[in-house]
C-alpha cells in the first residue's frame, strides 16, 4: 500500500534539500512538515532613494505531507539538488480511502471532501466507481471494484452461473397506464376481458414527472411464459434488473414479477441510479470485467459499449401502439416498416387501412403518433428522426434537455390517459369487423410469428401470442453451455503440466474448481456468444430493400448491424454473390427487387424472415417468407436475360461499354455511399421499356405504382438541399424517364461500370469516375458536372453527389431529345445557382 510522493510542479526548481525531518519508520500526519528545502530567487530590491537592483535571496521552505501514514523510504538525501519534479519518498498510508460514502471514507471515517494546502489531489477521486445497485452515494476505488468483481466471478464459477442483465419494459413485461384497460378488466363482457385477467396493476407515488398522470394505475402485462422462463434461467444465471424507469417503478415491477425476491433479490438498478439518462452501461454494474455478463434488452442502441454481450429481444408489444412508457429519455427507436398486408384490408376504405398502418408504425414513437391517424410519409419519419438525433447529440447532459424530456414524458402519459388510444383502436377494429363480417380480415403480424387465425367471434385488439421467451431461454441455455464447455476445456489445459500428469483422473474438477482457478482462463461471453450467433446466417449475403430510410447508411442501420452480428454479409447492391434480398412487404416493386428477380438464385424474402431468423437464431426456411414478385417483373427479367439491348440512349462511348462488359457481374462489396441507391431509385420511376417483349409501354404504365413514385419523388425532393439547380434538373429527369425507351440494361451496366472499375471503391473516386464518363459526353454541361461533383462539405456529401449525377444525366438526355431551348433555360438557372453559391 505504499504511496509515492512527488514534489509537485509548483515548486521553484532547482531546489536543494536541506533537511529530512522524518526517518523511515516514523509516523507522519497530514499537513506535517516532512522535508525542508531551500531555493534561491532573484528579486528586485529598492532603497528609499529610488535606486533599484536585483538581489539573490535564499528561501527556506517546508514540504508538508499530504496524507497520514508511516514514512517508508526516502529517495533523496540531504544536500541533494533537485532540478525538476520527481518522486522523492514512499510512505505507507494508514487508509487507502477505497470505499467512500457521501464524501466520507468508509474505512477510516475521515471527511474526504476536505481540502487543504497540503493535499495533492482530491481524496474523493480515489474512489470513483459506483458499482452498487441501489446506492449512488457509495463509491469504491478501482482496486476495491476489481476485488469485488473477482469475488463475484469466483462465486459464479463455483455455482456454474453467469450474470444476466434483464431489461424490463418491452423485454419481459409491457406497461401501460391507459385507464381503458382497467375498465375492460372489470367488465367480463369486454372483448379483451380474458387476456387482461393476467394483467397486474399498481399505483405509483414517486416524485417523477407526472402531473395529471399522478396516482394513475400502471397496468403490467408479463410476457407469456415469463415465470417459467425466469425460474429456468435463474438456475444458470444470476439475474439483475436494469431499467430506464424510476426506482419506485422498478421495485413495483419486481414485486409483481418476483414477489419473494428470489430471482432478482436487490439487484435492481433504475434510471435514478444509472447516472446516464440515455444509455445503459455494463460498467455501472461490472466496472472491471464483463466477461461473464449477458444482457437481454429490446433495444440495442442503448447499449453502445456492450453490443457483444447483448441479446436483442423482439420488443413485446401487448398493448398495441403504446410502446415503452419509459422511453422518452432514450434516443428514438429506429423504425422498420411494419409488416403490414395492406391490400388484404378493405380496398374501399383506404384511409382506414392507412390508419392501421400508421398505428403499426408508432409502437416506438408512442402516443403522439397514435392519436394522429393520418398516413405518415416515410420521409417525414426520416426527417424527424434525423432532427431528433441532432438534438440528442447536441444535448448531452443538458439540463434543459432533461426538463424537456421530463415534460415530454408527462405529455405522453397524460395523452395516454386522456386520449385512450387503445379504446379508439378497439372501437375501430370492432367497426371494421361489423362491416366485413365474413371477410377474413387479417391483422398485422405483431410478434414475428405467422398469424394464427383466432377462432374468436370478435376480434380483439390485445393478443397474447408471444413466444419470444421460449427462444430466448433456448439461446441462454446454449450460451451457458458453450461458455462452460469452453471454460472446462481451458481448465484442463491450464491445469496441464505436472499436476495433470501426476493425477490425470482428478485433474479436472477438484482442486481448481474450489478456488475457481485462474480467472484469466475464463472465456469471454462477448466472444462465445457472437461465435454461436454468427452460425445463424453464415454464408448469407443479404441486400435490403425498402427497410432503411433513404438518407441512412444501411451499414449503420440497426437491422443491418444485427444481421451482421448474426454472420450475414450485407451488400448495397444486387449482384451474383447475393443470396437473399430482404424486402419490405409494403414495397415489393423497388429496383432491387426487380434486379433480384432476374437472378433465380436470389431468394426474395420479407423482413420477417430476417427478424424470425434472428429471433430464433436459426436460419428459417425461406419458403413461407418469399415475397410475391409481380409477374411483369419476372417476365421482363427473364426476357432480358437473353436479348441484348439494341440501342443506347445514354450516348456512352465504346470504351466504357467495353469495360462494363469485361467487368461483368463483378461488383464491389462495400460501396460506402448510397449514391447507388439514389440513382437506381430513379430508374424505379421509369416504367419498363421492352419493345422487344411486345409489351406496350402504356400497358406497363398501367400497373406502375404512381403513388409510390410520387412518394419517392417527394422524398427525393425533401432530401436534396433544394437548390434551384437540383429541383430543376430533377423535374427534367422525370419527364425524360417517362418517355419509354429501351436499353435499360445498358444503363445499369453503365452505372455499375463506373463503380466497378475502381477497386478501392471510395466515394470520391466513384464520383470522379462518373465525372469522367460524363465529360466524355459531348454536351455543353461539362462545366456544370465538374462544378457539382466537387466535394460538398458536410455529411450529405455522398448522397448529394449521387443526386447531382443522376440529375445531370437527365439533363443530357433532355438536351439530346428536346433540343436547345430547355438546355439554355437550365444553363441560365444553373449559372444563377452557381453564382449564388460563389457569392
Amino acid at each position, binding site marked *: 500500500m505504499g504511496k509515492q510522493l512527488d514534489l509537485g510542479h509548483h515548486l521553484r526548481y532547482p531546489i536543494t534539500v536541506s533537511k529530512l525531518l522524518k526517518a523511515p519508520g516514523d509516523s507522519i500526519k497530514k499537513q506535517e512538515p516532512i522535508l525542508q528545502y531551500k531555493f534561491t530567487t532573484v528579486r528586485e530590491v529598492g532603497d528609499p532613494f529610488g535606486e533599484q537592483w536585483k538581489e539573490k535571496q535564499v528561501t527556506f521552505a517546508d514540504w508538508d505531507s499530504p496524507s497520514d501514514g508511516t514514512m517508508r523510504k526516502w529517495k533523496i538525501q540531504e544536500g541533494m539538488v533537485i532540478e525538476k519534479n520527481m518522486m522523492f519518498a514512499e510512505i505507507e498510508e494508514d487508509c487507502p480511502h477505497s*470505499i467512500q*460514502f*457521501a*464524501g*466520507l*471514507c*468508509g*474505512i*477510516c*471515517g*475521515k*471527511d474526504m*471532501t476536505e481540502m487543504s494546502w497540503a493535499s495533492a489531489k482530491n481524496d474523493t477521486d480515489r474512489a470513483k466507481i459506483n458499482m*452498487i*445497485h*441501489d*446506492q449512488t*452515494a*457509495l463509491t*469504491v476505488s478501482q482496486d*476495491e471494484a476489481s476485488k*469485488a468483481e473477482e*469475488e*463475484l466471478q469466483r*462465486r459464479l464459477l463455483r*455455482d456454474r452461473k453467469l450474470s444476466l442483465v434483464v431489461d424490463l419494459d418491452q423485454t419481459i413485461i409491457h406497461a401501460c397506464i391507459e385507464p381503458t384497460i382497467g375498465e375492460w378488466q372489470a367488465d367480463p363482457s369486454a372483448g379483451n376481458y380474458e387476456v387482461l385477467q393476467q394483467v397486474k396493476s399498481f399505483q405509483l407515488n414517486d416524485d417523477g414527472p407526472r402531473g395529471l398522470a399522478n396516482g394513475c394505475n400502471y397496468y403490467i402485462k408479463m410476457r407469456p411464459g415469463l415465470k417459467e422462463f425466469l425460474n429456468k434461467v435463474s438456475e444458470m444465471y444470476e439475474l439483475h434488473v436494469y431499467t430506464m424507469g424510476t426506482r419506485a417503478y422498478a421495485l413495483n415491477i419486481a414485486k409483481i414479477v418476483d414477489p*419473494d*425476491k*428470489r430471482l432478482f*433479490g*436487490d439487484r435492481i438498478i433504475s434510471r435514478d441510479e444509472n447516472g446516464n439518462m440515455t444509455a445503459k452501461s455494463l460498467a455501472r454494474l461490472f466496472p472491471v470485467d464483463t466477461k461473464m455478463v449477458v444482457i437481454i434488452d429490446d433495444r440495442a442502441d442503448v447499449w453502445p459499449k456492450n453490443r457483444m454481450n447483448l441479446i436483442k429481444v423482439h420488443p413485446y408489444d401487448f398493448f398495441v401502439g403504446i410502446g415503452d412508457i419509459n422511453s422518452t429519455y432514450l434516443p428514438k427507436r429506429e423504425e422498420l416498416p411494419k409488416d403490414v398486408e395492406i391490400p388484404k384490408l378493405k380496398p374501399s376504405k383506404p384511409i382506414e387501412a392507412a390508419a392501421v398502418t400508421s398505428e403499426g408504425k408508432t409502437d416506438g414513437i408512442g402516443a403522439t403518433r397514435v392519436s394522429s391517424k393520418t398516413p405518415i410519409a416515410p420521409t417525414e419519419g426520416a426527417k424527424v428522426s434525423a432532427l431528433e438525433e441532432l438534438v440528442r447529440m447536441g444535448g448531452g447532459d443538458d439540463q434543459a434537455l432533461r426538463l424537456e424530456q421530463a415534460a415530454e414524458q408527462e405529455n405522453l402519459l397524460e395523452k395516454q390517459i386522456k386520449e385512450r388510444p387503445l379504446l379508439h383502436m378497439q372501437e375501430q377494429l370492432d367497426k371494421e369487423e361489423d362491416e366485413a363480417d365474413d371477410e377474413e380480415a387479417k391483422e398485422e403480424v405483431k410478434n414475428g410469428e405467422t398469424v394464427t387465425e383466432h377462432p374468436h367471434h370478435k376480434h380483439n385488439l390485445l393478443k397474447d401470442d408471444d413466444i419470444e421467451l421460449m427462444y430466448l431461454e433456448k439461446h441462454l441455455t446454449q450460451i451457458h453451455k458453450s461458455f462452460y464447455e469452453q471454460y472446462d476445456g481451458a481448465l484442463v489445459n491450464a491445469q496441464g503440466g505436472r499436476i495433470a500428469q501426476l493425477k490425470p483422473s482428478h485433474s479436472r474438477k477438484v482442486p481448481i474448481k474450489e478456488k475457481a482457478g485462474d480467472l484469466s482462463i475464463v472465456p469471454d461471453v462477448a466472444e462465445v456468444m457472437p461465435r454461436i450467433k454468427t452460425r445463424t446466417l453464415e454464408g448469407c449475403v443479404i441486400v435490403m430493400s425498402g427497410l432503411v430510410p433513404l438518407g441512412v447508411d444501411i451499414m449503420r442501420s440497426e437491422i443491418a448491424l444485427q444481421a451482421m452480428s448474426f454472420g450475414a454479409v450485407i451488400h448495397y447492391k444486387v449482384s451474383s454473390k447475393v443470396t437473399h434480398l430482404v424486402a419490405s412487404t409494403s414495397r415489393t416493386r423497388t429496383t432491387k427487387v426487380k434486379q433480384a428477380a432476374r437472378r433465380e438464385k436470389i431468394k426474395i424474402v420479407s423482413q420477417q424472415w430476417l427478424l424470425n431468423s434472428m429471433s430464433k437464431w436459426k436460419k428459417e426456411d425461406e419458403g413461407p417468407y418469399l415475397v410475391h414478385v409481380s409477374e411483369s417483373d419476372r417476365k421482363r427479367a427473364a426476357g432480358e436475360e437473353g436479348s441484348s439491348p439494341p440501342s443506347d440512349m445514354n450516348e456512352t462511348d465504346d470504351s466504357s461499354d467495353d469495360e462494363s462488359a469485361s467487368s461483368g457481374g463483378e461488383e464491389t462489396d462495400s460501396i460506402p455511399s448510397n449514391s447507388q441507391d439514389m440513382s437506381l431509385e430513379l430508374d424505379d420511376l421509369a416504367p419498363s421499356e421492352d419493345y422487344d417483349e411486345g409489351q406496350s409501354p402504356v400497358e406497363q404504365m398501367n400497373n406502375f405504382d404512381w403513388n409510390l413514385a410520387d412518394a419517392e419523388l417527394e422524398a427525393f425532393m425533401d432530401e436534396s438541399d433544394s437548390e434551384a439547380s437540383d429541383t430543376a434538373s430533377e423535374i427534367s429527369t422525370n419527364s425524360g424517364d417517362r418517355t419509354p425507351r429501351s436499353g435499360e440494361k445498358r444503363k445499369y451496366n453503365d452505372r455499375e461500370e463506373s463503380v466497378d472499375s475502381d477497386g478501392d471503391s471510395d466515394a470520391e473516386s466513384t464520383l470522379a469516375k462518373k465525372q469522367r464518363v460524363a465529360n466524355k459526353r459531348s454536351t455543353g454541361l461539362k462545366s456544370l458536372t465538374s462544378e457539382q461533383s466537387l466535394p460538398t462539405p458536410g455529411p450529405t456529401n455522398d448522397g448529394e453527389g449521387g443526386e447531382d449525377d443522376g440529375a445531370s444525366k437527365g439533363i443530357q438526355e433532355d438536351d439530346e431529345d428536346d433540343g436547345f431551348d430547355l438546355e439554355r433555360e437550365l444553363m441560365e438557372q444553373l449559372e444563377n445557382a452557381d453564382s449564388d453559391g460563389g457569392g
Partner: protein
Amino acid sequence: MFFVLNLTHQVTLHPSYFGRSMHELVTGKLLKDVEGTCTGRYFIITIMDTVNISEGRVLPGSGLAEFNVSYRAVVWRPFKGETVDAIVTSVNQVGFFADAGPLPLFVSSHLIPPDIKFDPNATPPQFTNNEDSVIEIGTHVRVKLIGTRAEVGSMYAIASIKEDYLGCLQGS
C-alpha cells in the same frame, strides 16, 4: 448525544391568519418548520416549549407578519465515537447501510468483524457468521460512529461494528 438548546426561529404568518389565536398558529408553524430538521450540525428532535414569541412585525411589501420565536428543543448531535442503535436498510457486498433515527450511516466490510461474511446467495442477502449474527434488511444493530459529515440539511456517518458488544442486537 442529546442536548436541550435554547434556539430562535423566525416565523412568518400570512395576513389571513391575523386574529385571536395567532400565537397558537405561530407555535404550530414553528413545529412544522423546525421539528425533525437537520441544521447541518444537529437534528432538532422535538420542541419542548416556546419561551417567548416576539411582537409581530408586518413586513413591508408582502404584508406577512414576522415573529421571532425563542424555544427550547431537544437536539441530537451525532459525535465521532458515539454508540448508537440503528436499523439496517440495505445490504451489499461492500457493506451495509443503516438508519440511526434521522441519520443514514454506512458500515463497510472493513469495519465488520472478519468472521461475519457477506452471503449473496441468501434471500435477502445478508452478513452472517453462520451462528447468532445475521445482518439483513430490518436487523437492529448497535454501531459506533467513526466519522460524520454534514451537508446543508443532511448528515452522513460511517460506523463500525468491529468492537465488543457491537453488531446485532439479540432479542429485539
